[in-house]
């Protein structure tokens, strides 16, 4: 369990984090979303015990990150932003150092490290210095050091930044596999990542929580949620079709995109306009080129919640 209460961080007069409170339980994969400069990294640094908070407190598995720092840090695996490491070291010597510093018994060390090498496919590059590795490998070395001690809590600041689509997929799989028993907090500005790995998302901007919901719950806030879009083969029919759809009680509003010739019908609150529109199209014998149900658009929700906020 991570418990964050009234967390505030000030840099001089600038308030980077402003009274954040939330709890994360085992099994939760929490996505931290927000525009750049929203306070994501600062929050994660405080929770991981790197920065002291100006006020408020953080408990990690019952240990206060400031007063019982070593105890709390033992339970955390942390991937800092940009996955820093020691460039002159090899992944092998680097991870051995982490394992030793994290107090893994010498007898168990080799076996655990072999597991980690395998999990992150590091075997090929183990004896090459880290500064000669590609960005993807460096990121994986960073992930490896975060999971060496099989921590209860994983805090990952932009874990897939700079990875190619295959590597992103692999990292997300890995997070998914670890998710059942752990508390995972990841920050990202990739919305598809939230959909892929998180079961909870917190949106913050200017250091404040603006939304705290499941990714589905957030999607449901989108005006595109349950909206229907259609295209007609005959563009001359577009205007009358739009008028007809507008009159349906299930439809709150329609939009016509002139360029693509696509009509989008937004649902009235709590209504599902797909079936009525389909029925209407059949009755009127519209030459349908396309008809589909929209799902919520996370990026649109994100934009409307954060209001284009930038710090």
């Amino acid at each position, binding site marked *: 369990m991570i418990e964050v209460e009234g967390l505030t961080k000030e840099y001089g007069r600038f308030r980077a984090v402003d009274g954040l409170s939330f709890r994360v339980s085992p099994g939760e994969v929490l996505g931290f979303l927000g525009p750049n400069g929203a306070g994501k990294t600062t929050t994660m640094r405080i929770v991981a015990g*790197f920065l002291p908070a100006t006020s408020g407190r953080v408990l990690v598995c019952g240990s206060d990150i400031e007063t019982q720092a*070593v105890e709390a840090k033992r339970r955390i695996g942390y991937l800092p932003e940009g996955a820093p*490491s020691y460039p002159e070291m090899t992944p092998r010597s680097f991870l051995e150092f982490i394992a030793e*510093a994290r107090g893994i018994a010498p007898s168990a060390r080799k076996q655990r490290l072999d597991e980690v090498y395998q999990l992150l496919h590091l075997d090929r590059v183990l004896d090459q210095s880290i500064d000669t590795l590609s960005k993807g490998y460096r990121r994986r070395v960073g992930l490896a*050091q975060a999971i060496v001690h099989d921590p209860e809590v994983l805090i990952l600041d932009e874990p897939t930044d700079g990875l190619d689509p295959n590597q992103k997929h692999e990292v997300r799989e890995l997070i998914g596999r670890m998710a059942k028993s752990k508390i995972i907090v990841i920050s990202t500005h990739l919305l598809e990542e939230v959909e892929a790995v998180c079961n909870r998302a917190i949106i913050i901007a200017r250091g404040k929580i603006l939304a705290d919901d499941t990714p589905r719950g957030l999607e449901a806030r989108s005006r595109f949620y349950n909206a229907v879009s259609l295209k007609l083969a005959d563009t001359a029919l577009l205007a009358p079709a739009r008028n007809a759809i507008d009159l349906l009680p299930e439809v709150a509003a329609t939009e016509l995109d002139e360029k693509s010739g696509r009509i989008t019908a937004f649902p009235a609150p709590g209504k599902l306009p797909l079936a009525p529109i389909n029925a209407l199209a059949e009755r009127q014998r519209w030459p349908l080129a396309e008809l589909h149900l929209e799902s919520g658009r996370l990026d649109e929700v994100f934009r409307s919640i954060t209001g284009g906020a930038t710090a």
Partner: protein
Amino acid sequence: MSGVAAVFKRELASYFATPIAYVFIVIFLVLAGVFTFFYGGFYETGQADLSAFFYWHPWLYLFLVPALSMRLWAEERKSGSIELLMTLPIETWQAVAGKYLAAWAFTAISVALTFPIWITVNYLGDPDNGVIVAAYFGSILMAGGFLAVGACISAATKNQVIAFILSVVACFILLAPGLGVVQQVLGGIAPQWLVDGIASLGFQEHFDYISKGVIDLRDLVYFALLIGAALYSNTIVLEMKKAD
């Protein structure tokens, strides 16, 4: 203590993973030789001792130790690895001690590699080897003092050049009280007890005693206190400004 040991091992290995170690050792040995033979008049004095060799050590350290200490923390800050180090389950003082001891051990290795001159002087004559051992001990102790000051300064910046320059200045201030010129100037304007007091604040006087084979508790306490105070400040500086 496992935290100190882990950091110590990593740090010491990292010197030898890059050319830093070899460049440093070569420069140190060359300069030590140049000072001893050209400026120290090792042969001309006609004595079977290493005073010409040790005499220059404070001045050698003045520039070489800051070159070593400047990267200690500034580099961690610059590369961001400090974030990794400070989120490991170890106390800040353990990281400070581990890194410092590694740098000190490395300096001791460099100093130890001057052993051929010891062999030479034993070949040429019959020196008092007890004094030489004491002088080596004093030299390494003094290097430890310079290093601790440099480490503390390195913790305050992410710019290695700044760390270097400030460390040289700070180390010079610690050497200055022992300079003849400074003593003379002070002697003209201040009472003798004050002049002596100021001289005893500097490195030179304590190093001189030890390198003559006089191992006095006061000199040891001086270096121990100085190193302890510098490392304590190092820890506080890190705690205060980890991220910026």
